[in-house]
Each structure stands twice: as C-alpha cells, then as structure tokens.
C-alpha cells in the first residue's frame, strides 16, 4: 500500500474509533501493525503514560515486543523510557553501540534478535503522552521517509487519544453534574414536603432531614428520596 494512502487509511480507521466505545488498545494495536506493514521494522510497541505519569505498556505487534517493552519499564531503562522522558525521537540507534546507555536493556534486546531501535514521542502541543517504539532485526538504517511516516502515524494516534480523553473527562463531569443537580432538586422537594407536613419553616425542615440521615446513618439525598417517593412519611422523621 502506498505510504500516503496508508496514512489516510489509518486516520480513517482511527476516526471511526472516536465514538463512545473508543478502545485505546484497539487503536494502538492498529497503529503497531500498520507500522510493521509499512515500514521496514520487525516489531512495534506502544507505551502510554498513566495519569500519575508512569509509563505503561499498551499495545504491540508481537509477543516478543511486549516482553521487551515490559522489560524497559521494569528496569526503567531503554529507548522508550528516554524518548518519553525527553520528548525527543531516538532514531537508528545500534544496540551493539548502546551498552553504556542501556546496560541492562541492550543485551536483552540483542538476545531477542534485534539490531536497532527507534522510539518516537507521542506528543501534542508540548505534552508527551507516550512513545512509539520500533525494533528492527536487520542491519542498516531506516530512511527519513520511514521515520516521517512512523511519526505521522504516532501523531494521528496521539490526537485520537487526547480527543477521547477530553470527552471522557467531560462525560465524567457531566454525569457528576447531573447527579449533583438531581440530588439538590430532590432535597429541595423534600424540604417543601416536610415544611408543609410538620408546619415548620424550610430551615427546620432541612434540619429534620439531616438529623434523620445522621441518626440512621443514611445519606441526605437518600432520606430526601425516601420522603419524596412517600417511602418515608415527613412526619416520621427524627427531629
């Protein structure tokens, strides 16, 4: 598949994922496999940072890649770790020359049959959210176009993930808002009912609801709900 159309096809496929059931692992697995198909590498892995900032393995094109990615995290050493931390691409790094830099990782990767590694940052507007790692078994270098294509794919995935995260936050907040608003409405309705039934004012009515909730170890909204649904008579509230 021609490079440009690969990029377009990937964008289209990722865009399809930008719906409620967006699955990050799906998206990144697509990305990993596309890279192996289009670029002259043998294994691709993706790591994303958790909200706390630690790198986590998310997807890869093969099992041995998964093992190596996990290993990097475990020993806190390797191209992915460096790339994520610095936000800068690592390209065409010969593993045989990298023992100083990655004393534990380099021999392990070589043992798995790889010769060179590349790690591209997943970055948008100054934020690095993870890294795309490409491992190659053959000798020789990746050319500029390969690197550009891989970075392009990484960029598309980054945008997709960040857009999804924004809307996830929005969803959570919206649900919280909805719940909070609803609770408040029910509490006001319960106050009205208690105020009328016990011939007291709104403050007094509110106190009764709170006292009852405290005495019976119930939430205020729960008690209000019981009053509004007539499961609990306003006149039966502790006062």
């Amino acid at each position, binding site marked *: 598949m021609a490079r440009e159309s690969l990029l377009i096809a990937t964008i289209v496929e990722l865009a399809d994922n930008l*719906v*409620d059931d967006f699955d990050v692992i799906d998206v990144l697995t697509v990305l990993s496999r596309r890279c192996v198909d289009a670029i002259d590498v043998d294994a691709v892995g993706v790591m994303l940072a958790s909200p706390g900032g630690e790198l986590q393995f998310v997807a890869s094109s093969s099992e041995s890649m998964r093992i190596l990615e996990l290993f990097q995290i475990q020993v806190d050493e390797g191209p992915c770790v460096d790339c994520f931390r610095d936000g800068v691409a690592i390209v065409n790094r010969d593993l045989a020359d990298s023992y100083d830099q990655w004393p534990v990782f380099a021999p392990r990767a070589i043992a798995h049959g790889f010769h060179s590694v590349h790690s591209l940052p997943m970055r948008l507007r100054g934020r690095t959210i993870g890294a795309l790692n490409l491992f190659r078994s053959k000798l020789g270098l990746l050319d500029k176009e390969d690197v550009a294509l891989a970075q392009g794919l990484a960029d598309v995935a980054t945008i997709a993930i960040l*857009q999804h995260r*924004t*809307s996830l*936050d*929005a*969803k959570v*907040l*919206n649900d*919280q*808002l*909805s*719940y*909070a*608003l*609803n*609770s*408040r*409405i029910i509490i*006001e*309705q*319960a*106050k*009205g*009912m*208690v*105020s*009328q*039934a016990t011939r007291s004012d*709104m403050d007094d009515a509110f106190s009764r609801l709170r006292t009852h909730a405290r005495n019976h170890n119930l939430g205020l*909204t729960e008690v209000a709900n019981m009053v*509004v649904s*007539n499961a609990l008579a*306003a006149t039966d509230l502790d006062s």
Partner: protein
Amino acid sequence: MPTDRLTTIFELLARHERTGAEGGALCSVAADLTDLSGAGIVLGSAGRTMTTFCTSNNAAQSLMDIETMLGEGPGVDACSSEGSVDEVNLPTAHKARWLAYTPLAVSAGAGAVFGFPVRIGAVRLGALSLFRNEPGTLTETQSSDAYLMSSVIARAILSFQAGALPGTLAAELEREATFDFSVHQAAGMVAVQGSMSVGDALVALRAHAFAIGVPLAQLAISIVVRDIYFDPNSDTWRDDLGSES
C-alpha cells in the same frame, strides 16, 4: 476557535461580573454577543430532567418556563439535535412542529427562536435557547457566535463542576446559575397540600402560574411564604383569607 471572538466573550463576561448585572453571566453574554432579545440555558438531555440553568431577562425566563413545562421547543430539541434548531417566524410557523409551545411562546413575545446544543463532542450538557422579538433569520456572524458561545458555556459549566466535592453542586455553579429551587420547595408543599406526587404538583404549579399570568417563580415564592396554598377539597388555589387565588 476564533481567538478574537473568544477574547470578546471573556471581556463581556468580566464586565458582567464587575457591574453585577442581573441574570446569569453566561446567558446575558450570549444574548449580548449575538445581539438578540434574550437567552436561556437549559441543562438536560434524553432521559434526564430538564432544568433551567439561567436566563438573561424576564421574557427569556417565561420562554424557558414554557419549554421546560411542555418539554417542547428549540432548547429542548437542541438538547439532542446534531446542529442548531430554529423557527425564524414563530407567529406564522407550521403549528404541528411545536403544537403547545408555539402559541404560548408567541404570547410571551417571541418572533423568532433558536436552539444550539451545549456539548463537548458526544457529551451533551443541554442547550442554549435564544429568541428575538421580531421574526427573521440569524446572520452568519450571529450563528457562528452562537456556536462559539455554546462551546464556551459547555466548558465553563464543566470546569465549575470540576471544582466541586463529589455529589455536590459547585459553589460557582450555584452563584452563576439561577436555578430555581423555590419552585421545587413549593412543589413539595403542594404535594402534601393536595396529596399528590411531587411530579403532579410541579405540573399543577406551572399550569396555575400560566392560568393567572404570573411567572412560575413568583407563584412559587407566594406558596413558600404561605400567601397561596392548594385546597384539595375545592381543587382550587386559595389565598390566606380563603378566597380563590
């Protein structure tokens, strides 16, 4: 987002806060920015009750009350529509569209009405409802301003809520909004007075407010201070002295 228009919005919001003008800031700025007669924001979506967040003036409040009472209108539709909703000549509009809403909205002074979704992607918070006293379409500028404003409203509301303790409404949200809790208190009272559900009490309240031509909030307050009450025996509303209200 067009930066200079956004700057204008923030300036208008800041000015509103400084002058302590009435009506929620987000609503008032929405009306100002689009140069229309009034604006209201409603929160809700399919499956959630609709609550008025704020309105820019009394006329906007009446229109919002009509929409939330009937569950019909531009704001209600915009809570689930893809794009904006409009009726540019309400008095001559095809009645079947909003059968109950149209005549009431026309009496309340609306010539043209518009609804814009308030959303962030797939997450829907509610809608911005705008009206003009005279019929007529929106210009392109007005339309894009309304879309921009809806976006600002969505983010503002969520960022207010982000600062709240779990399960509670953010304090800024309560200040910013003019949620009418007295209506709900009144509904609770009427529910007990008339031995009916709170839901039925809300409907009865709204119907009576329209019947006697007063804003819902005003009737609600009269009930809360016990100037008016519902008498189940005669199925009527009475005032303190026992005469019909």
